[in-house]
Each structure stands twice: as structure tokens, then as C-alpha cells.
């Protein structure tokens, strides 16, 4: 059923900008339209481009914020999330606790 929901109406997560929009809803209580506009502005795109795989694949690789496939040498996990923090201007708890919090 998650697949049906994802394909019927989801933003499709890492394939596009779904995780980024979700982060703005969760971290700043932004309603859907506001969250999409915020993310689009930060990425230098228009809102319709946020769910375009052809565009978002390149944008995500350039910004090193993680892509859906395993690309050798590209950021994954916490480093990718640290890059998302910078792009969106937010703090992510995992980066605070498990990345910066573990460094001297």
C-alpha cells in the first residue's frame, strides 16, 4: 500500500525532493504550498520541478544531498543530511548527536 500511495500522490522521496519538503513541514510547521515554495527557492527551481526526476537527480547529485541509487563516493547517510542542513538552513538532530556531537 505504501507504493500505491507513493505513486498516486507522493512526492517520491529521494527520487525528487519529497524528503526536503517533508523536513520543512516537520521542522517549521509549513503547510504544503509554503514548504514546496521554500524548498524550490532554496534549490533555485520552480515548484513543478521539485517532482521532476530528470531535474532533481542532477540537482541532488550537484548538492551532494543523496540520491536514490548508490553512487560511489557521493554522500550518504549523515554526511548527506549535513549537506541538507546547509541547503535548507535547518538543524537535523542526527547530525547534531551522531556527527558533530562525536567530533573533538
Amino acid at each position: 500500500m505504501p507504493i500505491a500511495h507513493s505513486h498516486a500522490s507522493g512526492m517520491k522521496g529521494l527520487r525528487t525532493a519529497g524528503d526536503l519538503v517533508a523536513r520543512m513541514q516537520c521542522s517549521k510547521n509549513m503547510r504544503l504550498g509554503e514548504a514546496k515554495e521554500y524548498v524550490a527557492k532554496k534549490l533555485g527551481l520552480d515548484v513543478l520541478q521539485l517532482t521532476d526526476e530528470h531535474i532533481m537527480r542532477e540537482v541532488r547529485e550537484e548538492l551532494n544531498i543523496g540520491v536514490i541509487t548508490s553512487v560511489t563516493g557521493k554522500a550518504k547517510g549523515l554526511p548527506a543530511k549535513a549537506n541538507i542542513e546547509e541547503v535548507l538552513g535547518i538543524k537535523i538532530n542526527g547530525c547534531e548527536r551522531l556527527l558533530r556531537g562525536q567530533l573533538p
Partner: protein
Amino acid sequence: MTTEYYTRMGDGRRVSQTREQIYEDLKTGAAIAADLAGISELSADEIDKMAEIIMDPSIFVSVERGREVALSMDGGTIRIDADQGNSGCGIPASRLIGLMTHERVFCQDTIELGHIDYSFKPVKPIVSHECQNMEVIQQNTIVPVFYGAMPNMGLYYTPDGPYANPSDLMREFKIDEAMESIDHSIEHLTRDMVWIMQKLMASGADGVNFDTSGAAGDGDFSATLQACEQLRSEFPDMYIEIGMAGESVLGMHGSVEYAGKTLAGLWPHEQAKLCAKAGSNLYGPAINTNTGKSFAWNLARAVTFTKAAVIESPIPVHVNMGMGVGGVPMLETPPIDAVTRANKAMVEIAGVDGI
């Protein structure tokens, strides 16, 4: 000959209905929700739009380009391996693999870690194990990872918990004792949920999903709101989602209040405001499906409740659309034709921020 359309009952059974029957069920379902909650009925245009969605000849329907929404989950990621009699696939795989599959294969916008029992109370003795899992998952995933569990206050009553069972006490007309037992359970459950989430936040969790809140009635919802408030105070940047158990909060206690508002009998548009006041970031209304009514009846009823909540909510609304809620038929493998129609109606008519 009258044209009939392929549709469903609330239990997922295939039935055929005429255009007139579909319209009749849509209008009745919407009117019942509006009457119960004192909210606006759907407009004629909205009923027309919902009828069009239901009568679409395609198996799978989807939202218009640009109307995509963010998805959150409740327990979904443990369904790869979980097999406890409620929808698990039983594929031998770790929860990490389940989460990574949901992130990279099923393309979910957020995911969550959850205990196999999916209630907070059983997490207490194994919280260190959950924390270890959360750390490893945070190191390997990119989308937001919640810790998801149900408040499930029923586990605090005998024979499973330390407090007298209010249902038993009420049968004996011991009303004051029943209310006192609920009060004790609220305090205990709140303390447990806050303690567990303090540990998981230290392990890098993005936040918490209080799923199926209010399942044990107004006390259950009260504990959730209090835990939310305490966690928000301690973790200002934490992601908090409160998903509900049903469209109306059951008055097991009857007098429990939050912020001066009696919780018993609250409808989704009222629940949303209290969730926001407690500090939640997302609110998830749950509108239960009536298996004896048609898909059209259930969908119109669910969309009417949800639309009012979307309008009045100060925070994003992610409507519950699992098996048996949000217009989706009540069975473990709900037909995809019905799931996607419900999905499109919730996005394009109710205007939800997410699912």
C-alpha cells in the same frame, strides 16, 4: 440499459452502482459527517469531482501534476519482516533493511522505526536496543526517521498493567474509581513516552510519531498531548506527529481536559487545534470505514471530516489512509483502485498537506 460503475463496499467487496446510487451515497456520507461534527457539507462541485474520481474507468488514478504531497508513515517500515498477525509480509529482514527499502525502493518521503508490538510500553525494557537501531539507521538513511509507537493506554490496565481496568469498574458502577484509574494511567503513560523519546532523541531520532492516539479514549489522548508538550519544551527542533485512532475521541473518562477543553467527543477539526497547541508539527486525522456502507459513502464522509480539519488546523495535516481509515476499505489487502481513488480525493478535495 442503465450504466453501472465498478466500485467497492467498505469491506473491499466488488459491487456495481449506478451514477444515481453513487451520488446518493456521496451526499448521504458527506451529510452525516457534517451533521455529527457541525461542519460544512461538501459543495455540489466537490460531490461532482468525487463522483468523477469514483467513476473513472482506470484501475489506478493519481493526482494532477503539481498536487503531490509529502508522505509520513505509521508502522509501515516494519511490515517487511513483521508477522504478528497484522499485515506483516514475513520476509526475513532486519528493520534497517525495511527502512532502507522504504526509502530507496518505495520512495517514501519520511520513514519510521518501530517496535514489533508498536506500543510505547513494551519499548521500556528494550529501549537500549531501540537506541542502537536508531543510531545505525540514522547513519544509513537520508529521509526523516521518526520513532513510531502507539500510546495504547489499554496496556496500563489489568490484566496487562498496574491499574484497575476502568471497563470492569464501570460495569460495577464504580465510576469514581474508574476515573481515578484512568488519571493514574495518564500520568504513568505520559512519563513513559517522554522517557523513551528522551533516549531516542539522544540516539539521533528526527522525532516521534504518536500513532493511533486516543485508542483507549480521552485519557489516552490526554497523555499524548501532555507528552507532546513536555517533549516540545525539551527539544524545540524535534519533529512530532500525532495521528489519531478515530474521528471522535471516546469519553472513557468524560472529564479529562487539555488547555481548558474537554477531550471527550472532539472531532478532527477540534483535535487538530489541540495537537498544534501541544506543540505537534503534524496532525493525522483518522476517519474509520464502515464496512457495511459503500466506498462512495465512506469516502465522502472521510473527506468531509478531513476538509474541515485542513481548514481549521494551524499545522500540516497528514490524513491516515491505511486499511480501514480515510475512505480506504477495511481489509489487509485493500484494492488499489479504491486506495488510489481515496488518495486523489483527499488531496484534490480535502486539500491535505500529506498522507
